[in-house]
C-alpha cells in the first residue's frame, strides 16, 4: 500500500513539518505570549481544515457515504475540520483581545467538543467494517480493551481532578470531564480497532488504521494535559504550548491516516 501523492497530501506533510519547526523555535526562545503564538495556533487550525478535506476526499475511493469505510473516512474528516473551527474561534478571541485563553468558550461549544463524538462515530463505522461481530468471539484482547480502557481512563480522570475544582465555573468543570471521559471512550473504540485490524483486515489497511488510532491517542493525551494546564488553579498553559504541538500532531496523524486508507498504488 502506498499513500497517494496528491498535491494536498504534499502540502499537508510540508505544513506539518513547518509547524513542527516553528514550534521548536518558539519553545527555544521561551516565548510564552504574543501575536506570534496566536498565529501558531491559527496555522495548525488551517492544517486541520486541510486534513479534513483530504480525509473526506479519500472517501471517494470507497464510494463516499455508500460504504462503511467511506462513512468512517468522512466522519474522521469532519471531526478534524470541525476541531479546526474551534481553532478559528479561539484565534478570534485572541486577535480581538477578548481572551488569551478562551477556555471554556464558544471555541469548545462549536468546535473542539465535536471531535470525540464525530471520531467515535467514525470508529463505529470502522469497527463494523472490520468485522466486529466476527472478531468479538475471537479477540480476547479486543474485549479487554473495550471494557477496561474507559473504566481505567474514567478513574484516572477523577483521580487527576479530585483536588482541582474551580468554584463557580460549572462549564469548565463540565468540559474537563467531557474531554477526558469522551476521549477515553473514543480511545477504547480505537484500541479495539487496532486488535480487530490485526486479526481481520488482512494487513493492507493496517498502517492507515495505526496512524488514525495514534492520532486519537495523542488527542486524548493533549486533552488531558490541556485541561489540566489551562485550569486557573494550575495556569501553566500558554498559546503555542507543547499541548498545541500535540493537537497539531493528532490532527496531522488522523488526516494522514485517512489518506493512507487506500488500495491505490
Amino acid at each position, binding site marked *: 500500500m502506498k499513500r497517494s501523492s496528491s498535491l494536498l497530501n504534499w502540502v499537508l506533510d510540508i505544513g506539518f513539518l513547518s509547524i513542527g519547526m516553528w514550534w521548536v523555535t518558539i519553545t527555544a526562545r521561551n516565548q510564552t505570549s504574543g501575536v506570534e503564538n496566536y498565529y501558531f495556533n491559527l496555522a495548525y487550525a488551517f492544517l486541520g481544515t486541510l486534513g479534513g478535506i483530504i480525509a473526506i476526499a479519500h472517501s471517494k475511493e470507497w464510494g463516499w457515504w455508500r460504504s462503511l469505510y467511506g462513512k468512517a473516512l468522512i466522519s474522521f474528516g469532519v471531526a478534524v475540520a470541525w476541531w479546526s473551527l474551534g481553532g478559528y474561534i479561539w484565534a478570534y478571541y485572541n486577535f480581538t483581545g477578548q481572551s488569551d485563553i478562551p477556555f471554556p468558550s464558544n471555541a469548545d461549544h462549536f468546535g473542539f467538543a465535536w471531535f470525540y463524538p464525530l471520531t467515535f462515530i467514525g470508529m463505529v463505522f470502522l469497527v463494523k467494517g472490520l468485522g466486529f461481530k466476527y472478531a468479538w468471539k475471537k479477540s480476547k484482547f479486543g474485549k479487554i480493551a473495550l471494557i477496561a480502557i474507559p473504566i481505567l481512563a474514567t478513574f484516572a480522570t477523577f483521580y487527576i481532578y479530585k483536588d482541582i475544582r474551580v468554584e463557580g465555573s460549572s462549564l469548565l468543570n463540565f468540559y474537563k470531564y467531557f474531554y477526558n471521559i469522551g476521549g477515553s471512550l473514543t480511545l477504547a473504540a480505537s484500541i479495539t480497532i487496532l486488535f480487530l485490524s490485526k486479526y481481520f483486515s488482512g494487513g493492507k*489497511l493496517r498502517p492507515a488504521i495505526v496512524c488514525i488510532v495514534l492520532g486519537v491517542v495523542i488527542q486524548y493525551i493533549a486533552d488531558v494535559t490541556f485541561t489540566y494546564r489551562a485550569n486557573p488553579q494550575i495556569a501553566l498553559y500558554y498559546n503555542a504550548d507543547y499541548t498545541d504541538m500535540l493537537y497539531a500532531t493528532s490532527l496531522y496523524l488522523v488526516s494522514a491516516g485517512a489518506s493512507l486508507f487506500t488500495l491505490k498504488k
Partner: protein
Amino acid sequence: MNDNIYIDCIKEIIHSQMAIIGPMAISQANLSHDIIVDPNLTEVKVTTNGKQALNKLINTYAELFGHISVEVSREAVGKALKKNNIQEDISNIIE
C-alpha cells in the same frame, strides 16, 4: 447445483462487500477475470464454472481484506442459498 445459484451467491457476496468497501467490491470482482460484473451489480456473468469463480472471488477479497471478507462471504452465500431454498452445506461450496 447449477451456475445460476452460484451467480446468486456471487451477487450476494459482492453486495455484502459493497456495504463495507463500496464500489471497490465490483472493481475487485472484475479483476478476477472469471467474473464480469456491471457497475450497478444488475448483471453478473461467469466465464468459467460457477464454483471456481465464486471461490476465486472470495480469495480476491481475502487477499485484500483478510479473514473478515471470508466471514462476510460465508454469510452472503448462506443468505443466497436460503433465498433459493437450497439445503446445502456452505463448506461444500466454499473451499
